[in-house]
């Protein structure tokens, strides 16, 4: 069992903890970091379904959007308490996913994906047209939250508030992937029939994975509403849902738990920085995505974690070596005896 200090979650957490110091230096700003973390939560949640259970959903925007709207409803009609708002947003996302799941979970492959598209478009249409409830095209605006004397409108305060949820998401989801339940989810990905033959009700586990993914997508949506002070129908459109698919695969979610985080960071940063220069930022992102699919099928994290065919070091260690940092196992010289 690795000591906590060496766990990857610790390093990712550390990077994001000190990120606000470095963001302005590369032309970023604190709010961008907050947005990255929210997208990372969304992508990690999405990957519970894609990377671990092997189900491709093009309709996760529905659950993100549901979480976004339910936080807004909670603030507008129920209470100014941000924790309750987030809880309701999360539960709404989970419930929506569960109900959709009851209908679609027995389907596989392309039929599953098509149904997810259909459902998200239903959610999107409701969001855009039910103006009295959702604000329609204009969206639903909310006021600021405060926790005691802390004003969540302050960029840095909001950053660390979201950071807490980001850590929470990483820890919980990571634990689940390493648990027995997680193993069965993975088994569904690799060989559905064999898992069923072993006696597992695969559909129950799929529904669990779907609902889990919906709960945390709802969390991301709720945090998004807090950040931008409004809930919109746009993220529920199926091409907006496609964004999270792309960032997850780009980052390496198919082979690595942390891949989605990297993908979310790259996507969000490019979107912010390049769209200022040209409206065709998607073209640049598209080129990047195609290059990664062709040359790094395991995504960027997959590439970085790839080990040398001769049983040597992982790629990221070798990259760091190039710039002078000596890490990891040293290659033994010819004839040298290593005492382990």
């Amino acid at each position, binding site marked *: 069992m690795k000591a906590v200090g060496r766990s990857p979650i610790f390093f990712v957490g550390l990077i994001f903890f000190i990120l606000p110091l470095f963001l302005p230096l590369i*032309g970023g700003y604190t709010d961008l970091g907050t947005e990255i973390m929210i997208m990372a939560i969304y992508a990690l949640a999405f990957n519970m379904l894609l990377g671990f259970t092997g189900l491709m959903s093009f309709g996760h925007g529905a659950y993100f959007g549901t979480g976004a709207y339910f936080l807004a409803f909670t603030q507008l009609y129920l209470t100014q308490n941000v924790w309750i708002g987030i809880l309701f947003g999360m539960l709404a996302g989970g419930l929506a996913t569960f109900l959709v799941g009851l209908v679609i979970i027995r389907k596989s492959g392309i039929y599953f994906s098509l149904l997810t598209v259909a459902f998200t478009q239903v959610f999107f249409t409701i969001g855009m047209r039910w*103006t009295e409830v959702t604000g329609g*095209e204009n969206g639903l605006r909310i006021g600021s939250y405060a926790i005691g004397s802390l004003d969540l409108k302050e960029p840095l305060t909001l950053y660390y508030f979201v950071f807490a949820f980001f850590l929470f998401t990483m820890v919980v989801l990571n634990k689940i992937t390493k648990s027995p339940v997680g193993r069965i989810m993975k088994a569904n990905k690799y060989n559905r029939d064999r898992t069923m033959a072993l006696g597992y009700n695969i559909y129950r586990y799929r529904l669990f994975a779907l609902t889990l993914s919906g709960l945390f997508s709802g969390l991301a949506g709720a945090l998004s509403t807090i950040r931008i002070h409004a809930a919109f129908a746009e993220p529920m459109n199926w091409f907006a849902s496609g964004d999270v698919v792309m960032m997850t695969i780009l980052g390496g979610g198919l082979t690595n738990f942390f891949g989605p985080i990297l993908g979310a960071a790259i996507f969000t940063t490019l979107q912010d920085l390049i769209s200022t220069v040209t409206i065709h930022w998607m073209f640049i992102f598209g080129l990047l995505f195609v290059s990664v699919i062709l040359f790094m099928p395991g995504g960027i994290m997959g590439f970085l974690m790839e080990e040398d065919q001769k049983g040597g070091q992982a*790629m990221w260690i070798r990259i760091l070596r190039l710039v002078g940092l000596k890490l990891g196992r040293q290659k033994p010289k010819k004839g040298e005896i290593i005492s382990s």
Partner: protein
Amino acid sequence: MATEKKNAFSAKISRRQVLKGALASAATVSTIAMWPKILRAAEETLQIGVVSPASGNFGDQGASERRGMEMAVREFNAKGGVLGKKVEMLVEDDQTNPMVAARKARALVQRDKVKFMIGGISSATCVAVGQVADLEKVIYVITNGNAEDLTGALCNRYMFRVPFDSISCCAFMAEYVLKEIGKKWYMFTHDYKGGQDSARMVKKLLAKNGGTLLGETMIPMGTSDFSAYLLKVREVKPEVFITNVYGTDFINLMKQAYEFGISKEFPMASPLKDYSDAWALGPNISKGIAPMEWYHYGHPGAKAFVEAYQKNFPAAAVPIPENTCYCGYVGMKALFLAIIKAGTATDTKKVVSAFETLKFLEPANDGEVYVQEWDHQFIQNYYLVQAKEEKNMKDRTDLFEVLKIAKVSDYTLKREESACKLQKL
């Protein structure tokens, strides 16, 4: 031992090359990352954030309003700038999408630290940017969003609106048409918030002034075939056919109305029209009465403004300034005058106060422009125009005849009727 992976990666390109490529890309990405900082080095410039559509439904109108803003910027920069600083526009594309508009507005405020924002064609984007302005306490001048809410229920202390609101335009048109053309109306309503709001207004005005709505057809967004709908109009035989439809759908509607002979048979009117629609359609197909914020042949004083436009933009798609262009110009100009009056480009509260009591003569509009301090609506002249027959046109840009000129305050809500409650500074 792991089997040799057979893919393009291992066969032709060595890892070393890929690493080099990766490092090169990283260098490129970080250069791109630095780019906005390089492009927008603040120095001693006054930066105005422009949130305006460059793509999507209203891309053309966005380009037009930005030309107007650019004219104001060049005019003031030629005289030394505003409070001694050269003005710079930081342009962001809102893609006619409110979520994107909010994102761009937030980036302008938090990344580029602007204190002033301007722009907006789609009212939904104006609402989104207005919320950011209110939260961040920066000033936002709406140049082309007409929804009544913007100076009504959704007004805020930091937001100012240049074009007329949907109430004053409907009322101006309705009064004239009911009196001069006919009282029995049939209306096509574009089925989105803008169309629905105007429809509500029209029905209220009809009820108040003894008109009747013989019927209404809801037109879904993105309709390209109006044949079934147009046949209904011929069936009903109204005295006036109201086209409460906008954007590309409106263009399609007018073309088909012409083909069917409907536009010849029935007098037409709209609650709102942009010059660019008529320009796209051409004189015979463009028909009907509508209010417009400004028209280049509206009065002789506009000539100087038209000449300045042609000197600044000799290769522009439209050879004369349109209503959206004028609004961009006068909005930016008013903002500069307010900043100068307040004596500060950093204390937005002072600029708000100065803006609320702003009054100046605008030669391009033959009259005074001022701001209503209780709802931040710009009051100035506006025009009721009718599409001209080709034989009456002075030149290819003379698409309209001015029927009547009024001041926005003649038709907009009175203070007691307004839903706007401005917060304290």
